[in-house]
């Protein structure tokens, strides 16, 4: 170190971290409304924008196969009008409060919520209740939303990432499995949806243990329980919301061997790659070890996949891998979009990294990087009410222990290199893996055959071209 150089004198020694200020996940108070609906409130001083979300157990995973997409469309239709006012009047009422009403369904839950300045929380909750308790599902609006979803599916066919996702889940799951379709449904099932199906889907009994109203923000001087009791007090006691769903969906594996599917996209300048198989449910006992493993493999910027495919080879703008944790076994996938010429070499490198993380325990440096990141970034994730409410909602949706978020950092810290190796060996399956490539089959097909990764099935389906009416 040249101390006569002032720049070197200043920068030559790396700083050491100070003492961390303690952070605990904000304390939630839990109660119940008179009808049984759990109410969770989190007081966050200095956060005047309050986030309120009602978690309902209605998810796409529980819907019948021939109604695939009903839950997602139902949630969208909730804000399209109530028994008291039409969609425009409803939207305008929310806007006058500076509030945004939202309703969205995924695989495991329907979440209806509002974000609003604290002083207007009362009227915003009234609107929320109106949407939840008195949805009208107007025929015309439902038909429009259905058509919009069908148009969106058309557009997905020409979006390489969305096309790859669709082909990937169709490959890894048995056709009878809900997860083999998109949560929003397929064309054939969406086409059949109408207002009566949506009303029925909304009224379908769900597990009342997976419902809760969660309110977070600066709640000083606000009697949240007093505000919501008249609005939601009888919820979860009504006939519509009792009893767990009778049968749990069966999640079938669609793979009995390695399958390579090449979806032809003529002239594509990149190949969109998805490699993987069935993953794990959120409540897996290995959750924390698997999370650390996925970080090392494809979560961190300096993950093995990104360092190899991007920083060493320059094949891609970014490569990653991870588990999509749902109530039941969601997918595990590794992913990258690579320039067409690099398709086969990138796949070879990607598969080698999957093999390597099963072959030997990660280095101490990798373990430290992954654990320190996950533990250290925890407070950053929970700076504002929205993500705090969302994390508490996850506990409800997945049926996790109330102290799950408090246990998270110690549990991550306790993961050892041997746990990661064991998790990789138990949960990554190279002997039967799906490899989906959306790219120019004429350019990459022959090389892909020659690579000997597996039999290549080429999917040549015409991209939709819509004639103007």
């Amino acid at each position, binding site marked *: 170190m040249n101390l006569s150089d002032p720049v*070197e*004198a*200043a*920068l030559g020694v*790396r*700083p050491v*971290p*100070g003492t*961390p*200020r303690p*952070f605990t996940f904000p304390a939630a108070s839990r109660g119940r409304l008179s009808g049984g609906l759990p109410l969770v409130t989190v007081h966050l001083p*200095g956060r*005047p924008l309050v986030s309120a979300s009602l978690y309902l157990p209605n998810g796409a995973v529980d819907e019948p196969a021939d109604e695939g997409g009903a839950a997602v469309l139902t949630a969208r239709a909730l*804000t399209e009008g109530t028994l008291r006012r039409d*969609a*425009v009047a409803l*939207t*305008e009422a929310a*806007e*006058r*409060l*500076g*509030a*945004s009403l939202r309703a969205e369904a995924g695989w495991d839950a329907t979440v209806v919520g509002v974000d609003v300045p604290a002083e*207007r929380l009362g009227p915003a909750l009234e609107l929320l209740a109106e949407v939840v308790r008195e949805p009208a599902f107007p025929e015309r*609006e439902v038909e*429009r939303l259905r*058509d*919009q979803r069908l*148009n*969106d599916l*058309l*557009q997905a066919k*020409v979006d390489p990432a969305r096309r790859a996702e669709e082909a990937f889940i169709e490959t890894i799951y048995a056709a009878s499995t809900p997860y083999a379709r998109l949560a929003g449904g397929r064309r054939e099932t969406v086409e059949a949806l109408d207002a009566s199906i949506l009303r029925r889907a909304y009224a379908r009994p769900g597990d009342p243990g997976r419902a809760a109203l969660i309110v977070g923000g600066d709640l000083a001087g606000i009697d949240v329980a007093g505000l919501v009791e008249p609005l939601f007090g009888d919820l979860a006691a009504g006939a519509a919301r009792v009893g767990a769903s009778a049968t749990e969906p069966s999640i079938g594996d669609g793979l009995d061997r390695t399958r390579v599917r090449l979806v032809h996209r*003529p*002239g594509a*300048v*990149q190949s969109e790659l998805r490699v993987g198989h069935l993953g794990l449910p959120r409540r897996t006992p290995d959750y924390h070890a698997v999370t650390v493993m996925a970080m090392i493999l494809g979560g*961190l910027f*300096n993950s093995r996949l990104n360092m190899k495919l991007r920083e*060493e*080879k*320059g*094949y891609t*703008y970014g490569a990653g891998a991870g588990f999509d944790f749902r109530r039941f076994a969601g997918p595990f996938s590794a992913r990258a*979009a690579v*320039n067409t010429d690099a398709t086969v070499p990138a796949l070879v490198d990607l598969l080698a990294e999957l093999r390597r993380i099963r072959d030997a325990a990660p280095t101490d440096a990798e373990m*430290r990087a992954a654990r*320190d*990141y996950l533990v*250290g*970034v*925890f*407070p*950053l994730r929970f*700076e*504002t009410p929205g993500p705090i409410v969302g994390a508490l909602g996850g506990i409800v949706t997945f049926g996790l222990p109330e102290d799950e978020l408090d246990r998270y950092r110690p549990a991550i810290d306790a993961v050892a290199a041997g746990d990661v190796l064991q998790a990789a060996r138990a949960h990554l399956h190279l002997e039967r893996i799906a490899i989906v490539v959306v790219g120019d089959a004429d350019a990459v097909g022959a090389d892909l055959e020659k690579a000997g990764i597996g039999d290549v099935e080429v999917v040549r389906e015409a991209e939709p*071209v819509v004639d*103007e*009416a």
Partner: protein
Amino acid sequence: MTVPTVRYTDERLPNGLRLVISEDHLVPVVAVNIWYDVGSKHEQPGKTGFAHLFEHVMFQGSRHVAKAEHIALVQAAGGSMNGTTWLDRTNYFETMPSHQLELALWLEADRMGTLLDALSQENLDNQRAVVKNEKRSSYDNQPYGTWQEKLLGHIYPEGHPYHHPTIGSMADLDAASLEDVAAFFRTYYAPNNAVLSIVGDVDPGQARAWVGRYFGPLAANPAIPAFDPDPLPLTLGGEIRETVPDRVPLPRIYVGFRAPRIGDPRLYALEIAAQVLAGGKGSRLHRRLVRDEQVAQDVAMFGLGFSSGPSVFMGWATVRPDSTIEAVEAALLDELARIGVDPISDDELGRAKALIETDELAALQRVSERADRLSMYATLLDDPDEINRQLERYLAVTREDVRAACAELLVAANRVVLTYVPADAGARSAEAA
């Protein structure tokens, strides 16, 4: 409701680095944000895409930091980070647990001061390949992916600094030499061309000492070239239309207009107009095109504010399969004309302002956003206090302001219309060949 005032200090180091510090101890988190006053507008002909390629090089190491180690150190400290390039600027930012602030400052100082020590042909070639794949992912292989290049290309004439997009030309990137990259660094990556904002759980005295220690010795560049492009007229002076065949199932109509530059009150009026026209389900375009006439799949309208020339006011509507381009375009243009004739209603204005107020409140909750805005207003308007003026500027807009701005600017003679149409299979394979 009032949006809380952001309190801050604003000072300069002797080498010209502008330092803005704002305390907020709600959460043990701190944001570090640097804006360099260099963007794609500073690029010379034949060297487009340099500012963005350079942003990638900034993560390839410096004298005391190995390739990719910057990100490794930040993530291992429990932080998040990134950099972005835009027409007017390049920014770099970290959000850290507050006890790791010094690390972020040291990392930023090390690359501001000693980047060239680590610059190598190998790293440059690698990142050039990464950027080409970024272009393939984000533009070439995306439906409608060329809209930005085409719209900017029409709104700003050939040779204007805003004419080309930040991703630049791949031929220009191929021609970039190590010496070009080094020269770009020496010219623009100097403390007197940067604003450093630190926001969050910070002891200002301590932060100031660290900034002085790490950034203080870095040399200023006394010869940063002045940037003063020839002014363009506020309007285009004629309509420009282009039809773009693309791999899309649904046609989409993009409209773009020249608009006043950042800081002009008319831009706030236009932002209100964007909210009234397409901000959510209660908006005019959504109501008419999507809900009532059911001719469009989606609509959007927004402004892109720039500081060295006209801004852009733009939007789009996607045509439903059972409708026609003509029907959608007619309804879209009709609404854009109507808002310049009859003033919007008091209720529309009130709703737009209430939503903007909530948006401001939401954005300013996060220390990273506050840091970015302080850097932005210091860089583009030479006044970080604009962070505390935005809401009042929106609230000051009247119905007549909206009408007048729309009447002046949302006119045919100031309009670019880009129509994306599905390419037929024959045209598609010809394109691919």
